[in-house]
């Protein structure tokens, strides 16, 4: 903001015939640039320091911890090398089967959530894009799940899904009582995971829908008109013209949801804590349990190792996604 007048003054001072030596402006410019650089560094310093402390240090600490046995409070770490990784993957019957089950559940979530999110949010965005009236209002309404406080909403879902909750009552009242779940939707091992997937999708659709809506609004109308002139109907236009044009958005929506599915666990922690039994345990929740819910057992290293395994999986996914994006766009 103060740069413009100062620059102008310097320029005038440097002009021939002003009676000032040429070297002085050059020195002043260098000094000014030095000050500007210093200002810049000082402005970014807080972020760099915070990243170094909260990011690099934490990541490095976590990596080292993954080779140790520690409860977070004991004065010394017991070094175990790769044993934590072995225990999680196959060696320890206490952890390996739980991790395997959690990995399977996570895989289901990773397949179902991105697919369903795309399957719901794209048509929703197309419909919303064609709504001429009240589009901002409808957009806001569809976005409500995303901005509502997660924990409160997930508690509300718990009540809705109980044996005497709203969904069972609704099903019975419309004559579909045979579909209701007497043990509640989260109490039956066969419906608990699909229900959790549905709740996760419900939370993911708003962002997906908004991203598609943004993409749809940037589609060149002449392309759509050309398709219509060629005789394409609504369905054909959307399937053969619009859908390929928003493919990059689909990639982003899929990637974001894959990442959330791989690492997210808050919904599962609040709504089921991995239950009933262990039928909705996911890898993120297992890592959290090992770190914080083991009554100070020395399992922080195991939690860290599981976190690094998740990171490796996420990295592979990101690379695959990059490869797919590069070949398609």
């Amino acid at each position, binding site marked *: 903001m*103060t740069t413009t007048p*100062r620059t102008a003054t310097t320029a005038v001072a440097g002009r021939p015939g002003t009676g000032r030596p040429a070297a002085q402006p050059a020195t002043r410019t260098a000094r000014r640039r030095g*000050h500007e650089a*210093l*200002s810049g560094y*000082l*402005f970014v*310093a*807080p*972020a760099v*320091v*915070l990243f170094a*402390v909260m990011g690099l240090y934490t990541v490095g600490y976590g990596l080292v911890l993954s080779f140790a*046995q520690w*409860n*977070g*409070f*004991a*004065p010394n770490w*017991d070094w175990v090398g790769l044993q934590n990784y072995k225990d999680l993957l196959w060696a*320890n*019957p*206490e952890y390996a089967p*739980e991790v395997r089950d959690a990995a399977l559940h996570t895989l289901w979530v990773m397949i179902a959530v991105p697919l369903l999110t795309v399957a719901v949010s794209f048509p929703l965005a197309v419909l919303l894009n064609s709504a001429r009236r009240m589009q901002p209002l409808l957009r806001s309404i569809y976005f409500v799940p995303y901005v509502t406080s997660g924990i409160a909403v997930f508690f509300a879902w*718990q009540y809705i899904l*109980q*044996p*005497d909750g709203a969904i069972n009552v609704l099903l019975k009242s419309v004559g579909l009582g045979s579909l209701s779940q*007497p*043990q*509640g939707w*989260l*109490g039956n*091992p066969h419906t608990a995971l699909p229900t959790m997937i549905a709740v996760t999708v419900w939370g993911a659709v708003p962002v997906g829908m908004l991203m598609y809506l943004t993409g749809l609004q940037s589609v060149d109308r002449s392309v759509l008109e050309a398709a219509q002139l060629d005789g394409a109907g609504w369905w054909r236009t959307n399937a053969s013209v619009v859908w390929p044009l928003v493919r990059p958005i689909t990639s982003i929506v899929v990637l974001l949801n894959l990442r959330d599915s791989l690492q997210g666990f808050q919904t599962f922690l609040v709504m*089921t*804590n991995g*239950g*009933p*039994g*262990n*039928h909705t345990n996911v890898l993120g929740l297992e890592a959290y349990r090992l770190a*914080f*819910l*083991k*009554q*100070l*057992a*020395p*399992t922080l290293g195991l939690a860290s190792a599981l976190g690094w395994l998740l990171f490796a999986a996420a990295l592979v996914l990101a690379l695959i996604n990059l490869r797919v994006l590069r070949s398609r766009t």
Partner: protein
Amino acid sequence: MHIPFTERCAESSDVSRGTTGSGRPRRARLAAVGVVTVLALAPVAACGGSSGSSGGGKTLDMWTFKQSHLAGLKAAAAAFKKQTGITVNIEVYGPDDAYTTKVQAAAKTHDLPDVLEVHSDGEDLVLGSAGISKDISSDVGSDWSGLYQSSVQQSGTVTAEKYKESLPTDSTSHGVKQGQRFSVPFTSGTFGIVMGNKKALAAAGITKAPATYEEWLQDLKATKAKDPVNGGLSLGLKVKSTGLTWAFQPLAFAELGKDDYHALFSQDPAKDLASPNGVKALNLYSELQPYWMPGTQSLDIDGADQAFAQGKSAWDIGGTFTLAFLQQNGMQPDDVLAFGIPGPAGGAVPKPALGPLALTGLAVTSTSTHQADAEKWMKFLAQPSVASQFAKAATEVSSTELGADAATVMGPTLYAMTKTFAGTPENTYDPSDNSFRPAGYDQDSMSDIIADLTPLHQKSAAQTGKDMEKLNNSFWKNAQK
């Protein structure tokens, strides 16, 4: 705590604005950068820590995880202040998991109170080994420990057995030394207590406690038949260990007797959980399957007790500590028929007793600068006159020996529960005895397996036994490394 910081920040901002206005923009910019940097780092550097425990020498802070203890503790604190001039501030954080997290976080930030209420003979030793609570063994003499019931006088102490359990490096109490003491008992009792809603029971024609497990199953059938929706049994099975420790284990003890029950957790394939004995005990437990209240597997302990108090179930499995929670939720003790889980008629121990144990204790934190005052407060709570007032206010069994006054203090329902304590060593199920299990045994992992038998009905008793045997053997293998 944050107000002075805000004021300092406001002053700094004013200074920077003054400089800008003086017509020296470069300095102003640098000053602004400096202020921004300081402000950004201030939360980390200046305001990141906290001062520790309570401020004045005559003030103590105490945390508890039991809402039902708050009123009784506050009343005791008022009497303590009158007697000693020391103020005790009591705060409650719940549920248990949140409390555990709170304590761990506070330990990391050196913001612990002076006194913690802890789960006895487990959590207290864990906190001791982690350096969060102090070893008070040298201060608790017989004049103090003698105030407690004889069965819990040693609670909080690292006995030879506890020390042996702590030896494996993956033990939660690894590092403690024999003879150390990290808590004194506060409340006592037991779990495996069945509670029936007298009104619902009367509607089904039940007026007295069942004498055998078979009779109880008949009673469950009757209440379920009378009210198929609300006539079932609730238990907070979302908390993993409840089904295993509150129901299966007392039943298995009654069915098999002490030695064969202990052998279930041994490495002997002829007697362990996959053996005919194990399958018999698991089958017995799975007979509860038709009677679980809908969705009880999704409820935590408070949720299951609440469902019972609200009339959504006719029966509830809990402990002596449940009555206080039921009372908080509008149910009067007189509305409850309470009895210990009865043994099967043909079992080795048809009339088992449930051994009492210290449920919660009091620990001094390692960061407390008022250890002497903290211990004075803990000893004050152990005095019979104080303990009986607390027991009455909290509807809890106090660890202090109350003698002949116990029945009057606790009321008839709670006192009836304590009658389940009376037994011989042979016919008493002792939930605190872990001597027969491998060090490092994790009940939560075992509970995940047994949940698939009942209430989830996913596996047979034989398969459940095999899976539990496999896990149990791995605990032994780890323990013997």
